[in-house]
């Protein structure tokens, strides 16, 4: 289709889980060969057997494998890899890794190390945004050096304030401070959490935005100075600063606001010469004032909802940009169609404070049909390891409008059946039943406000459903008794046992 000579013919995916599989899918569609890396705990993970090639890079702990820059670079060089895609998490925002790729002549699919450094440190990012005339939340432009300084700055800005790790992300190293007495603990805890999570203990302070919406804009920039935005994602449904459900378009923002925020997002990206796919996160208060929050210089977990609404494959765009091609879309071509919602399916026990629940997946029946997309790395027989993230799949629905999309979510959650490990599916089902969600009236306080409703409570009409569970268990027990008492089984499949059992005529006495 294009005269462009591709440089990228073989890509190493420096990641695991659903995102590694998702990236490989687009590579395969582009006839680019794929190289997986894996830890010793991940030999049976889907990204390994889905790839064209796969190499072990170390032990189970991430620091020994998926964060082991030199081992990954070794594999890339040895197997003549043209480019590396970092996915999200792990090394995706590590500028040293970008530099190492550059030094070895390997294309890093993402922005330059300089851009990453400018935006990766939140204090530096604030400075650049202020210079570029992008609104930021009132706060300090520098790191805090002592408890005393922290107290002073907090008092100046006025409570409530947010204390944040400069290198933070994913909800780590963040504390909400309501009054002066809380400053000291918050400061010390955030510093130590930040040090252990990000290797840096710089923290700073921002005004706390009340009833805020977490709304982010997807942007794409190429190596020829073009930047466009791909509209917004509403990410306000969060638990402990971790996103649970995202949707696009946002039910909160107006066309006018979308235009304004989109323009600022493009300005923000241009200010740092952004190349690749990135996300500008904004806080939007109840009066629809918006503030730059941070930039994620990588693909986001929730990128599929943008893909569904715009009909664009973001991974393909990332690869084309990294290959030196100009953007294939102009801003005026970007038109939202319909509505998309993503749910994150996690192996966790929602009734036990969301404790992770790794284990062996026995059944994995995924919803299919019109308007459903599953980005998953789960399969039947797969044992989810204890070392990594509990997210096993993302469930994305698309429909012509928001009401239909929610209707569709009900249908697909009913179809989604996972046994062997506990998941948050029932919890997600309760979220989409909350009237504030159905009406699109929610902000980041949603989970806090509806915590009570979202608890699993047995209802009065439970007995009927319990009896169904009793019948299934009881019959299964009986079949197994039957089987043990006879030994004419030439075929041991349980369904066959069932069929033989089904053939018994007349009354059976137990």
């Amino acid at each position, binding site marked *: 289709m294009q005269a462009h000579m591709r440089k990228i013919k073989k890509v190493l995916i420096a990641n695991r889980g659903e995102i590694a599989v998702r990236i490989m899918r687009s590579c395969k569609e582009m006839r680019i060969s794929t190289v997986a890396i894996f830890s010793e705990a991940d030999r049976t993970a889907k990204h390994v057997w889905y790839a064209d090639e796969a190499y072990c890079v170390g032990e189970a702990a991430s620091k020994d494998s998926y964060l082991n820059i030199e081992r990954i670079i070794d594999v890339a060089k040895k197997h003549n890899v043209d480019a590396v895609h970092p996915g999200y998490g792990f090394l995706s925002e590590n500028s040293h890794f970008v530099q190492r790729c550059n030094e070895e002549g390997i294309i890093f699919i993402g922005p330059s190390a300089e851009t990453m450094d400018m935006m990766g440190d939140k204090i530096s990012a604030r400075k650049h945004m202020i210079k570029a005339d992008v609104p930021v939340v009132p706060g300090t432009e520098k790191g805090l050096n002592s408890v005393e300084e922290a107290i002073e700055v907090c008092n100046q800005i006025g409570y409530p304030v947010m204390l944040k790790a400069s290198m933070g992300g994913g909800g780590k190293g963040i504390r909400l401070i309501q009054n002066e007495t809380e400053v000291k603990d918050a400061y010390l805890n955030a510093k130590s959490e930040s040090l252990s999570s990000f290797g840096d203990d710089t923290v700073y302070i921002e005004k706390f935005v009340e009833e805020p919406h977490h709304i982010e804009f997807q942007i794409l920039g190429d190596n020829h100075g073009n930047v466009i935005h791909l509209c917004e994602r509403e990410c306000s449904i969060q638990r402990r600063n971790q996103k649970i459900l995202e949707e696009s378009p946002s039910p909160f923002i107006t066309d006018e606001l979308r235009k304004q925020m989109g323009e600022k997002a493009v300005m923000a990206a241009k200010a740092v010469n952004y190349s690749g796919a990135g996300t500008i996160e904004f806080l939007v208060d109840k009066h629809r004032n918006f503030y730059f929050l941070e930039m994620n210089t990588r693909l986001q977990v929730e990128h599929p909802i943008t893909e569904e609404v715009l009909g664009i494959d973001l991974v393909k765009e990332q690869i084309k940009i990294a290959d030196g091609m100009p953007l294939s879309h102009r801003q005026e071509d970007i038109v939202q169609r319909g509505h998309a919602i993503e749910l994150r399916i996690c192996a966790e026990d929602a009734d036990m404070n969301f404790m*992770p629940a790794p284990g062996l997946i026995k*059944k994995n029946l995924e919803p299919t049909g019109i308007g459903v997309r599953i980005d998953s790395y789960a399969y039947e027989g797969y044992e989810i390891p204890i070392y990594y993230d509990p997210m096993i799949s993302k469930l994305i629905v698309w429909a012509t409008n928001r009401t239909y999309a929610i209707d569709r979510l009900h249908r697909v959650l009913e179809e989604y059946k996972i*046994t062997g490990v506990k998941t948050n599916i029932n919890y997600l089902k309760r979220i989409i039943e909350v009237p504030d969600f159905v009406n699109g009236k929610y902000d980041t306080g949603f989970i806090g406000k509806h915590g009570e409703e979202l608890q699993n409570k047995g209802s009065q009409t439970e007995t009927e459903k319990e009896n169904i*569970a009793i019948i299934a*268990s009881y019959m299964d027990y009986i079949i197994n008794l039957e089987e043990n008492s006879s030994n004419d089984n030439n075929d041991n499949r349980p369904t066959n046992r069932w069929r033989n059992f089904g053939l018994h005529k*007349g009354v059976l006495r137990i």
Partner: protein
Amino acid sequence: MEVQIGNRVAEVELISKEGNFVCLSIDGEQYEIDITMLEDGVYSILNNGKSYNAELTRSDDNKEYKVNAAFSSYDVKIIDEKAKYLRMRKDTDDRQDNKIISPMPGKIVSIPVKVGDTLSKGDTAIVIEAMKMQNSFKVASDCTIREILVAEGDAVNANQVLIHLELN
């Protein structure tokens, strides 16, 4: 036969069976159902035409089940004579709450106690990490540490006993 579901114990009786058509009573209520196994552990039940599905996973002895049905999860136990006896014993045991059990597979991050330590209700006895999250396990009442069966850095399985307590 008794079947336990959550805290409820139901009396279940099989009345008749003709192929897939089964008649049984649960706590006196009669059910005439058409039941079939779709695949291992997955049942389709038609109760007067109403269609229900249940997916279950079995314990090793085929007497305990985890059952999913219509957005609910249940723990179901078949109570035969042996189970009845064990259940009575366990009731007594459970009241003592004299051990800390790992609810999930994971790695021991720290054990901030040693044998002989006296703990107050709410004190942390052990910290386990799984899937990038740390979970602290606290004692539910005042007690003394009797025996510690694991060490920091150990990998542990779900339901593994970690610490024995002496309740005060």
